[in-house]
C-alpha cells in the first residue's frame, strides 16, 4: 500500500519548512509505546522491525530529562529501507532536487501523522560535550532532552541541534570518514536525515559517516530534520478557549489551526500519539535490549574529540534560543548588579544569577571574545562571587591567554571567594601549558608539510594559530585572533 503524502511549504519564525501530512502509510519509520512498567513511559523509535532507540521517562514529567539509549543499528533494517535514505541525501544535498520532491521516499515510510520538515545545522554531540557515538550505549539522562525547557520557555521556536546515532559504531571506519572528508574538501555538500525524538535531540537516520567527517574537519553538518507535529497549545487561561487546543507545535514551529488545512487537521486528530506498527511484538521484544559496541579496537580520531569539545552544549544552545540579543550596555547593566535597564526592560530574567548564567552561555556560543571579556569581569567582581563556580567551569575548557591570565590571578589570590576555584585554576594552568607546548610541536611539524597539504583540517589550523600565539607571547594579539574551530574552518574554506 502506497502512502498518501501531501506537502505544503510554509514559513515560521525559525525559517522555512514543509508541512507534511502522511496517511495510509505502512508506518515503516515511527515511534511506538513499549512501556512495561506503570507510571514509567518507554517509547521506541523503530525502522521496519528494528527498535533503534529507546526513550524512557516518568509519566507527566515534561520538564525532566529523558533517559535515552541505542538498542540496535539501522543497518539491520536495510532490507526494508533499501537505499532510499542515502538517495534522498544525495539528491537534496547534491543540489539536484528540491526538498519537497527529494523527501518523498522518506515521507512515504513515516507513520501516519503530520510532520514539519526543514533543513538545519546540527551537532553530532549529546549536548554535554561527548561525540554522539560515545554517548548512548549506557542508559543515562541526556541533558536538554526534556520536551519543555525552562530556559527557552514556551514562546521560542528552535531547530533541535543534537544527534543520537542509529547506526552502530562499526559503521565508523577511517576509510569511510576519509572518503567523506575528501568530498567535503572538493566542495561537495554532505548532510543527513534526522528524526526528532525529544527536546533538543534527534535521531540521525542517515549520514553518520558524513557527520563524523564534518566533525573531524570542522565543517558545519546540515540535516533534513523531520519533526512530528504532535504537541498541542491550549487557549489562554481564563479565556473562552481555556481547556481547548488552539494550535499544534513541535520545537521548530507553532502553527495555529487557521494555518492548517482541514484535511491535515483531521489527519492529526485521527492519529493517536502512539502508533502500533505491524511488527509491534517484535519491536517491543527488541526494545528491552541495548546496543553494545563490543570491544572495538577502533577509536574516533583525536580531531573529532578536539572539535566536539568546541561544540556548544545543551545549556549554551538553550540560552542562545532564549536570548535574541545582548548588547554591551546590557552586559554592563548585568555587571552592575541589576537585571533591568534604564527603561525598565528585563534584560534576561528577574533572577540575577540566572541572568548571569544565561548571558555566559549565550556569549560562549555566539561571541567568544565577548564571552571571555564578560566572564573575566564577572570573575573579578566580588559582588558576583556566587557565580564564580559556574563561570569557572564554563571557562575551564576555553584555551585562551586571557583565561590563563585570569586563572593565574585566581591561583595567586588570597581572596577566600576564590579558594574553591584553586583546583580548577591549577588544572587549567597545566592544561594550558600542555596545550601551548603541543601547539608549538604541531606548528613545527605542520609548517614543513603545510605547503603540500591543501586539505588540512580546521582543527589542525586552529592548533597552528594557537601556536603562533604561543610563540608570539603577545596576549593582545591572541585576544584578537581567537576563533572557534568552526569559524576557522569557514575561513580556510573561503581561502
Amino acid at each position, binding site marked *: 500500500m502506497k502512502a498518501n503524502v501531501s506537502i505544503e511549504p510554509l514559513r515560521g519564525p525559525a525559517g522555512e519548512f514543509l508541512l507534511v501530512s502522511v496517511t495510509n502509510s505502512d508506518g515503516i519509520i515511527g515511534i511506538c509505546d513499549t512501556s512495561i512498567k*506503570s507510571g514509567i513511559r518507554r517509547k521506541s523509535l523503530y525502522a521496519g522491525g528494528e527498535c533503534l532507540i529507546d526513550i524512557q521517562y516518568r509519566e507527566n514529567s515534561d520538564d525532566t530529562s529523558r533517559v535515552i539509549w541505542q538498542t540496535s543499528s539501522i543497518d539491520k533494517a536495510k532490507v526494508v529501507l533499501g537505499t532510499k535514505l542515502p538517495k534522498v541525501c544525495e539528491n537534496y544535498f547534491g543540489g539536484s532536487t528540491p526538498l519537497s520532491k527529494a523527501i518523498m521516499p522518506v515521507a512515504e515510510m513515516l507513520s501516519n501523522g503530520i510532520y514539519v520538515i526543514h533543513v538545519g545545522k546540527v551537532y553530532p554531540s549529546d549536548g554535554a560535550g561527548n561525540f554522539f557515538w560515545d554517548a548512548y550505549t549506557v542508559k543515562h539522562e541526556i541533558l536538554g532532552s526534556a520536551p519543555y525547557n525552562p530556559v527557552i520557555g514556551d514562546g521560542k521556536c528552535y531547530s533541535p541541534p543534537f544527534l543520537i546515532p542509529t547506526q552502530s559504531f562499526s559503521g565508523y571506519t577511517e576509510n569511510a570518514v576519509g572518503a567523506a572528508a575528501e568530498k567535503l574538501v572538493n566542495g561537495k555538500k554532505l548532510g543527513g536525515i534526522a528524526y526528532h525524538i525529544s527536546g533538543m535531540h534527534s535521531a540521525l537516520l542517515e549520514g553518520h559517516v558524513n557527520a563524523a567527517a564534518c566533525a573531524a574537519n570542522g565543517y558545519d553538518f546540515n540535516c533534513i530534520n523531520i519533526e512530528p507535529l504532535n504537541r498541542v497549545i491550549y487557549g489562554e487561561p481564563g479565556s473562552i478557549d481555556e*481547556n481547548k*487546543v488552539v494550535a499544534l507545535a513541535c520545537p521548530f514551529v507553532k502553527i495555529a*489551526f*487557521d494555518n492548517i488545512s482541514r484535511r491535515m487537521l483531521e489527519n492529526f*486528530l*485521527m*492519529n*493517536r500519539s*502512539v502508533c502500533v506498527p505491524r511488527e509491534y511484538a517484535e519491536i517491543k521484544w527488541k526494545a528491552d535490549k541495548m546496543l553494545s559496541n563490543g570491544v572495538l579496537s577502533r577509536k574516533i580520531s583525536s580531531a573529532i574529540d578536539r572539535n566536539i569539545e568546541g561544540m556548544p552544549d545543551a545549556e549554551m544552545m538553550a540560552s542562545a534560543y532564549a536570548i535574541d540579543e545582548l548588547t554591551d550596555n546590557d552586559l554592563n547593566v548585568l555587571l552592575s548588579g541589576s537585571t533591568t535597564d534604564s527603561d525598565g526592560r528585563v534584560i534576561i530574567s528577574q533572577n540575577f544569577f540566572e541572568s548571569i548564567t544565561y548571558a555566559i552561555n549565550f556569549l560562549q556560543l555566539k561571541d567568544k571574545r565577548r564571552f571571555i571579556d564578560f566572564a573575566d569581569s564577572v570573575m573579578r567582581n566580588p559582588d558576583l562571587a556566587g557565580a564564580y563556580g559556574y563561570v569557572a567551569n564554563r571557562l575551564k575548557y576555553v584555551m585562551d591567554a586571557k583565561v590563563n591570565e585570569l586563572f593565574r590571578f585566581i591561583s595567586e589570590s588570597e581572596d577566600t571567594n576564590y579558594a574553591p576555584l584553586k583546583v580548577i585554576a591549577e588544572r587549567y594552568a597545566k592544561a594550558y601549558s600542555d596545550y601551548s607546548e603541543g601547539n608549538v610541536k604541531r606548528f613545527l611539524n605542520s609548517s614543513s608539510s603545510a605547503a603540500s597539504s591543501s586539505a588540512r583540517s580546521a582543527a589542525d589550523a586552529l592548533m597552528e594559530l594557537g601556536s603562533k600565539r604561543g610563540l608570539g607571547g603577545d596576549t593582545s594579539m591572541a585576544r584578537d585572533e581567537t576563533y572557534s574551530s568552526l569559524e576557522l574552518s569557514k575561513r580556510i574554506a573561503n581561502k
Partner: protein
Amino acid sequence: MAFDALSGFKIVVSQYNLTYIVGDYFAVFDDESDIPEVYEWSAVKLYEELADHFRIAFERAEYTIPKKSFVDNTQIIHFRTIAEGMLSGQKDVVFNVKNRIIPPKYNYSNADLSNNAYTATGVYAEKEINSGSVSHIYSKIKIPIWGIAALTAVLSFIALWTFGKNIEKNLIFYVVISFFIGIGVGTVIYLILCIIARYRYAGFLKKDVSTVENLVFVVAPDGFGAIEQCIYCGKELIPWSFAKYFYETKYSIAIVCRDKSVCCIPKRLFQKSTQNDVLDYISSRVEQD
C-alpha cells in the same frame, strides 16, 4: 489512559451539521467552518451512554452523538472504547453508563500481559448471562429472600396454630406445612428473579452492541478483562484491586467490580483442564461471595 493504540475516527452527524473526531482529543467540526473545537479528554465533566445516544459535557459545551450516526456496531464499540479509555483514571468525570454486559472501559489500564495469562474467545450464551444475573441479584438479596421465606413459615405456623383444630394432634403436620409454605415463597421469589434476569438479558440484547460480539476473556497476574475482539490490543486489563468479589455459577465465573459492573467469564470457553486453574487463579486474588 488506556486503549491508546486504537486509531481515531470521525463521525458525521448530518442532522446537526457536525463532524466529531475521537482520538487523543475530542474534536468537533462545524460543517460551515474548517476550524474545530478541540478538547482535552481531561476537560470532560460528564460522560453518558444511554440506549440511543452518547452525551459528553465540558464546562461550557455539551455534545450529543446519536447512535444512529455510527456506521455500524463496531464503530460504536470503537467510539466508547477510545472515549472511556481516555477517561480512565480521571476522578472528576461523572459516568452514566447503563445496560452494559461487560465492564466499561474506564476501569481498564495498561498492563503487562505476561505468558501466564489465560485467554479465551467467544460470544456470550443466554444461559451464562442469565445464570450470572440471577446469581448476582441472588447474592445481593439472598438474606432478605430467605428471611421473608422464614417469616412466611413462622406466620403460617402462627395462623395454623390460631385457626387450626386439634393443635396437639396436628402440631407436626402444621410445622411441615409452614416449612413448605416458607420454601414455596422463597422459590417463587427466586423464579421472579429468573424472569427479571431474562428481561435484563433482553434489555442487553436491545441496548448493548457487545452482547452479540466476539469477546476476549483474560485472566492474568495483573488483572482480568472481557474485551470485544474487534478492539482487543492485548495490553489492557482491569487491575485486581478493582475487583470487589466473585461468585461461581454452573456456567460462569462472575467478578464484580468496584463500580458494580460485572465481568462474567463463561466456563465453557476454557478447556476443562484449565477451568479449575482459572477458578483457583481468581480465588487467590479476590474474595468469593
